[in-house]
């Protein structure tokens, strides 16, 4: 595991401790709230999944998207915020929960953060021990897409 990923794991686990507790799926909106970010749903154009308005303390999320995707979007935007991306500038972008190959490093980091926050290492290990590798069930438990949980399981070397 490289140092950047380690760092992101650390930040996400701190964020989780701050407001997440041990409930699953991880209460991502509540965690954003703990950092002073309000989640505002809006009927954006379909191309926009979400955006972060740092100055106003707002995460905008596309209300027409699937709940699972919205969760990832919120976690992704929170990632930009906590990882100090776009200092002073406004970040507006699309995010999708299966784009693990994005070219921009900050996007990759924000996706990595979202993955770590929504699927915390220890929680994933515990659930795998309990339920074995039932991807369908795990994706529901963590409130993420099947692709997202698969990527995380690979990353944690559980499959």
């Amino acid at each position, binding site marked *: 595991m490289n140092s950047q990923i380690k760092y992101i794991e650390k930040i996400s686990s701190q964020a989780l401790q701050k407001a997440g507790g041990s409930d699953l799926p991880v209460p991502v909106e509540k965690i954003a709230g703990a950092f002073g970010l309000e989640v*505002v749903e*809006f009927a*954006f*154009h379909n*191309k*926009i999944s979400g*955006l972060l*308005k740092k100055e*106003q303390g*707002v995460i*905008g999320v596309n209300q027409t998207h699937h709940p699972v995707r919205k969760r990832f979007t919120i976690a992704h935007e929170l990632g930009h915020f906590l990882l100090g991306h776009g200092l002073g*500038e*406004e*970040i*507006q*972008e*699309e995010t*999708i929960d*299966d*784009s693990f*190959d*994005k*070219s*921009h490093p900050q*996007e990759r980091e924000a996706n990595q953060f979202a993955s770590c926050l929504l699927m915390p290492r220890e929680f994933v290990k515990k659930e795998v021990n309990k339920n074995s590798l039932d991807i369908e069930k795990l994706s529901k438990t963590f409130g993420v897409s099947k692709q997202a949980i698969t990527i995380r399981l690979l990353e944690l070397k559980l499959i």
Partner: protein
Amino acid sequence: MKEISQKIGQKIKEVREEKGITQKQLGEYLGYSAMGVSYFEQGVREVKVSDLQKIASFFGKEPSFFLSAGLTIFRADKNSGTDMETSKSLSDFDKFLARRKQK
């Protein structure tokens, strides 16, 4: 893998149509028939990395552009790839936030 091939194919189709290029024209450049390009676009046939590089340079894009699951990042502050619809959507959101604040 099929799902990824489909997404890459979708992206190729999107860019090709946006640029007004036919499947035949792209095929000629790559050394395939129009049908071959159609297979790529449908995700029926996997795109080789070497072909993806050619396709990317043909359209003046990075290969990663096609790998990003069929979507592009845009940042309004850099004016790159921000189209009318998304700009409007973003300004609508600003208005919405401003109105909300007044209440």
